[in-house]
């Protein structure tokens, strides 16, 4: 029983990271129909900028806030300088642009920072809690709590604030939003900033556990994308569900089946799920209009 619990802890911690990356995907996808393969770079920036600023003598909380700001600015720049000018390009063309952007950001990071691995101190110590024979690090609770806080925060933002509703409206129907007087371009830019900031928060939360370096982004983008599709793209709840499920599948796959093939097991599950639910677990089901 202890091992089941241990696998759960592991899966949820890792899954929370995937969920945050998938959330970033979802926010940008909803606002602009772009699948942003540079999403992983925001996570990298969150970790690396914090590490670099802290190393330069800045207090850790200030460095963390600054890193979130940097990632948000990069998100805005991505939208304004790369996505917006390419409006009307094919969806695959836009994907290629975001991949170009991720190569570019990574290239800058390896020059500005370095190619070493770095860590941040855990927020509240490294002494694991023991729960029914399994153990969990305090930082894992921070990651899970942080993820929950972001999900709740996003919900409040989209449902309760005027600007959040404007973003949601842009996501739901761009033309109608524009007709209602919403500046949809600004809302898209805001979405990119938001996705950047969430990515950076994820990076700061997990760096004490997973460590970071200039090239952690690619794999995170891939896993986050997979998580988003598993849940059903465009649905924030699906992103979180997909992320947590992916983490759990990996943990249980590694624990019970084969650690060498755990990523493969995850993809097999995704394939099977998609065969049964071609739009993800809780994706939009719209009948085709002809």
């Amino acid at each position: 029983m202890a091992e089941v619990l241990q696998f759960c802890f592991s899966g949820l911690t890792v899954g929370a990271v995937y969920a945050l990356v998938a959330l970033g995907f979802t926010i940008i996808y909803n606002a602009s129909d772009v699948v942003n393969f540079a999403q992983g770079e925001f996570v990298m920036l969150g970790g690396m900028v914090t590490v670099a600023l802290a190393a330069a003598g800045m207090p850790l909380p200030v460095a963390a806030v600054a890193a979130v700001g940097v990632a948000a600015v990069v998100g805005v720049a991505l939208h304004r300088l790369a996505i917006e000018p390419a409006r009307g390009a094919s969806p695959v063309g836009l994907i290629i642009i975001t991949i170009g952007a991720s190569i570019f950001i990574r290239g800058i990071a390896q020059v500005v920072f370095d190619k070493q691995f770095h860590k941040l101190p855990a927020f509240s110590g490294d002494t694991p809690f023991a729960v029914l024979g399994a153990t969990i690090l305090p930082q894992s609770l921070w990651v899970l709590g942080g993820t929950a806080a972001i999900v709740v925060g996003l919900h409040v933002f989209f449902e309760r604030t005027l600007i959040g509703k404007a973003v949601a409206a842009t996501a739901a129907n761009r033309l109608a939003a524009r007709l209602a007087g919403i500046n949809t371009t600004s809302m898209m830019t805001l979405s990119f900033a938001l996705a950047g900031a969430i990515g950076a928060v994820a990076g700061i939360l997990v760096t004490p556990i997973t460590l970071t370096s200039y090239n952690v982004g690619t794999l995170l983008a891939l896993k986050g994308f997979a998580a988003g599709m598993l849940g059903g793209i465009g649905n924030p709840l699906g992103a979180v569900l997909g992320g947590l499920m992916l983490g759990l599948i990996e943990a249980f796959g590694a624990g019970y089946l084969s650690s060498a093939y755990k990523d493969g097991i995850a993809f097999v599950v995704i394939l099977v799920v998609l065969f049964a639910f071609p739009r993800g677990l809780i994706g939009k089901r719209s009948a085709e209009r002809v």
Partner: protein
Amino acid sequence: MRALLSSRWTTLGLLCLVIAALPLVFPSGYYYRVAALVWISAIAAVGLNIFMGYAGQVSLGHAGFFGIGAYAVAIGPARFGLNSWLCIFLGVFLSAALAWLVGRPILRLRGHYLAIATLGLGFLIALVLANEARWTGGPDGTAVPRLTIAGARLMEPVTWYWISGGLLTLGTALALNLENSAVGRALRALHDSEIAAALAGIDVARHKLRAFVIAAVYASLAGSALALFDGFITPDAAGFLRSIELVAMVVVGGIGSTAGSIVGAGLLVTLPQILAVFVEYEQIALGLIIMVVMIFLRRGIVPSARRLIVRRAP
């Protein structure tokens, strides 16, 4: 002018001309090698363009088939004593069979869901190649026995320049023929509207599957060619990054344009060679160039260029 530019003979003629003329200016084997790598990548890209450009589908895992072709000529001769020529066809057969089997369920998915499913397929192939070290040599890779023809071992870049160039010409000719046939029209039709295509009598599922299998065969052949040319192969050949690179070739060159796929392959293979002088700034430059090309030449290089020429011509 437009007729001339869009004629398949123009594309094919230009390609032959370039392949024939380049050796006149090549000072050393290095250039033959780079050009041969361009031709080999272009073969895979031209095939992928049939699936992505003609049929409008997406595959983020196509390097998986590239890997199958590469490992077929590595494992077959070394572990089973099979003839390398036979193994090329074995690779093609395996790739086609796998594409056919997996394609039927996968190709019901659309857009980004198809993207993640194909990505998963490619990922699984690369994972097996990396993990089954007994057969594949694992992540360190494995040596590939050279191809022999009448007792001579084919390994010089010049030799492979001509082999891959010839193969590309053939692959291009076949792709262009396909484009201008009932099957090609069916693929391009379902690209624009699956429902209208179906109501025109096109078996949409079957034609998507055909395009997928054809693209897998092209990739497998290209993979075999690369493995035999390099004499060495690692599972990275089947990896996600290689898949992305193939897609980028098709898209940057101009999705739907066979000539574009070749130009895209040329650009993405030679760029790292050119950018090598920037040393640590290489990645920055590469990312920037990809973005700039896609932002300013939205349709890709060849279609954009073609439009400009047509617009300027009287």
